[in-house]
């Protein structure tokens, strides 16, 4: 993991407007152009309550270096119109350095936004578009924004060509004309923050969403079976797998509900196929009983939980880090299992791949805690490393000598017992969620129970996880402890604090369960103060750290529920005060 410093050359902008205004089209073109030009990016979207259409905001951060966090503010906010756009106010923080681009024919800048003190600039997108036959305001906007931030208008036109030229030549002409007109209009808008120059030749990069990355990671890790039930914001994982799995000889099934999907996965895994499903909080709730069975019967399975606002149906389209509790502690009984969390959009790939590996190696279910802000955002990122994790199960492949009984749940030193895949001659056994003897026969005896409990725990605590267990970066006697989608902001804040002379380190576990007391103690060596950062109203991560680890006495917290992300400046300013 390379450390991502200040990201000084980045520009954060948002384009918004009502349904049909073409905001998303324009923003996608902008992203494609930035990609073409060699930049890195983050791209998120927000929309109103309507099922389809309705107001929308595209939230983009472009940068000459890799980025994994949103910035503190929206440097440029362009509204094609203002209908209901005030709904996005909290998601699009503005300040005196921001620029608001407004079409005066499409309504006033909403009070809540205007009062930020941002500079307001007019752009007659509608009227300018009318001057071009077939011209559209969103293309005027695109041209203006590209011009303002210093993204080559030629590249924008090239990208337009790639997507439109062949299919719709007239639309292409009109769009190019509109983009150019917008760019021209922008010349008189005064300077805004410029996109930093690229250091050299554009690097090889990928464009991928967190959900796509998780799905691809699963396939890379060896997954060949998925049964699933759609749910926001996890559906894209399933959409990807439904088309990718058959391509690699695998199986995708849309199940009748989450009870079915997880249990089908367990059946598939019992049959030898590395299996995955993806869901969000409500679906995970329904999978709890089956995850207990997977734990007790030692059947590996991976569940990606793309977290959204909770509790209950909550806020399905927005992010939160509040499924940590259920993922860690949701099972009834003492059922130790794996919990991991990716810490950036791109890391969804590696972490999910690793999850498959861990689940298969330990014959234990693994929950991957992603979230909406990772899963449904797109990034332009460096090509991911070609990590070699492929789920490999310890199996028995030969029939045992006559008279010897196969012990499915043999009490081995590592705790992992060789598993017979159905079809293996002479090793037939019955997998069971009832407590059992080493051969799998039901038992309610205390000694069998404790043998199996010890074994199931030992598999996990004794496993060699290596450096991936956490992202530990930097030095200093302050540690920022966080996880998942907060890591990007923390990293950026730590880099800024360093520039201000306050040294802090980052400790962000990727492996949330089992806990790693020894390596955590090492990571914490010399730390005097801890800042725990999380997007949970109850501070679930803080309580987890306190309960599971020994932390220094001075602990501060930044915690709140979603949906607004925690931004670097919040962490930065707290670090400065802690560093005093």
């Amino acid at each position, binding site marked *: 993991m390379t450390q991502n410093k200040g990201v000084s050359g980045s520009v954060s902008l948002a384009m918004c407007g009502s349904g049909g205004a073409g905001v998303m089209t324009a923003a996608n073109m902008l992203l494609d152009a930035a990609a073409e030009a060699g930049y890195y990016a983050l791209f998120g979207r927000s929309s109103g309550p309507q099922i389809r259409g309705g107001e929308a905001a595209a939230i983009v951060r472009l940068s000459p270096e890799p980025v994994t966090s949103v910035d503190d503010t929206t440097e440029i906010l362009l509204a094609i119109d203002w209908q209901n756009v005030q709904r996005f106010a909290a998601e699009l923080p503005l300040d005196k350095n921001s620029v608001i681009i407004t079409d005066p024919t499409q309504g006033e800048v909403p009070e809540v936004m205007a009062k930020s003190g941002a500079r307001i600039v007019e752009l007659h997108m509608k009227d300018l578009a009318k001057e071009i036959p077939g011209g559209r305001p969103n293309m005027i906007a695109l041209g203006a924004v590209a011009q303002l931030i210093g993204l080559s208008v030629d590249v924008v036109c090239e990208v337009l060509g790639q997507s439109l030229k062949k299919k719709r030549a007239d639309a292409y002409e009109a769009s190019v004309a509109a983009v150019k007109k917008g760019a021209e209009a922008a010349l008189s808008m005064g300077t805004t923050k410029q996109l930093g120059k690229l250091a050299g030749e554009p690097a090889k990069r990928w464009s991928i969403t967190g959900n796509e990355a998780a799905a691809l990671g699963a396939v890379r890790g060896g997954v060949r079976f998925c049964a699933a039930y759609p749910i926001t914001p996890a559906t894209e994982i399933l959409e990807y797998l439904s088309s*990718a799995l058959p391509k690699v000889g695998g*199986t995708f*099934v849309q199940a009748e509900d989450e009870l079915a999907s997880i249990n089908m996965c*367990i*059946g598939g895994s019992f*049959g030898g196929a590395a299996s995955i499903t993806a869901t969000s909080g409500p679906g995970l709730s329904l999978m709890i009983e089956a995850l207990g069975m997977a734990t007790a*019967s030692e059947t590996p399975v991976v569940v990606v939980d793309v977290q959204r606002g909770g509790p209950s149906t909550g806020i399905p389209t927005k992010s939160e880090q509040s499924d940590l509790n259920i993922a860690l502690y949701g099972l009834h009984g003492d059922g130790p299992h794996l919990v991991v969390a990716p810490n950036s959009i791109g890391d969804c790939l590696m972490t999910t791949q690793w999850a498959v590996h861990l689940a298969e190696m330990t014959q234990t279910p693994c929950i991957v805690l992603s979230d909406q802000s990772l899963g449904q955002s797109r990034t332009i990122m460096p090509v991911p490393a070609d990590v070699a994790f492929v789920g490999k199960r310890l199996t028995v492949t030969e029939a045992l000598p006559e008279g010897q009984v196969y012990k499915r749940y043999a009490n081995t030193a590592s705790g992992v017992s060789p598993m017979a895949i*159905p079809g293996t001659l002479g090793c037939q056994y019955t997998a069971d969620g009832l407590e059992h003897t080493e051969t799998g026969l039901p038992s309610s005896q205390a000694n069998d129970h404790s043998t199996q409990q010890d074994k199931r725990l030992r598999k996990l605590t004794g496993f060699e996880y290596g450096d991936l267990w956490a992202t530990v970066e930097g030095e200093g006697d302050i540690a920022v402890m966080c996880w998942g989608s907060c890591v990007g902001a923390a990293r950026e804040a730590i880099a800024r604090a360093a520039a201000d002379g306050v040294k802090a380190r980052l400790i962000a576990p990727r492996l949330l369960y089992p806990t790693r007391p020894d390596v955590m103690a090492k990571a914490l060596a010399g730390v005097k103060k801890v800042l725990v950062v999380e997007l949970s109203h109850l501070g679930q991560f803080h309580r987890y750290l306190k309960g599971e680890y020994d932390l220094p006495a001075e602990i501060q917290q930044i915690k709140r529920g979603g949906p607004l992300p925690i931004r670097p400046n919040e962490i930065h300013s707290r670090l400065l005060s802690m560093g005093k």
Partner: protein
Amino acid sequence: MTESNCAITYSAKDYKSETKPVWCPGCGDYSVLSSITKAFADLNLEPHKTSVVSGIGCSSRIPAYTTTYGFHTIHGRALVVGAGLKLARPDMTVLVAGGDGDGFSIGGNHFLHACRRNVDMTYVVMDNRVYGMTKGQPSPTTEPDWDASAMAPPGGTGMTPFNPLAIALAAGANFVARCFSGDPNGTAAVIAEAIKHPGFSFVAVMSPCITFREEQREWKNVVRPSPVDSTTDAAQAAKRLMTDDGFNMGILYRGARVPYSPKGAGQATIGDLEAEFAL
């Protein structure tokens, strides 16, 4: 057994494990176990290529009493675990077994969808019209006036029992049969037919619970082989099942839908997939 080139012929006892059932002496499930193992033998299935998957209940204890691969899952989920196994491993023969509570009460939704989905597996329900394992509560197939349960109101629940075969048919099942545990050979023959049937096959076996429903000992006097031939006409079968008194035995419907089998045959590499994301 050891692997060899000469064909092995299995007998029913090759499928019976040495584990002693926890069932009450006289429970109908003993006979169902015999019928299943006999059907396996009739088809000469290799035990290691065969799997018995169940939920939770007295009847659901059955996997451990066979010598096949078994999965004793959780209450109500046997059909979906079984479907997952079959979909991932089309080469295995999958038989799912359990009780009326497991299959029609908590498991009712999977039952509906199994009928529709039509994965190639066989579902044997040991229907004793009661929750045996939890000591005798009414199940969806319990008679409305049965009240010898600490959880039923005096006079019974008053609810018309389910007709699982009619529901199966309405949900799209293509093989629907009713058997009686007191006729183990007949039951074995039907189960063998069911296993041979491509797609989902449903065999409801009336299997007395002599502990909580002693009166079911009388079943042997009232069941009768189906007075009509099995039909391939779903509308006809539906009409018949809606008027049937529940004591007609046999294969009551057989259709010809194509089994569901989504396993891909693609040969793409990971590199092929990755290429889609490269700029």
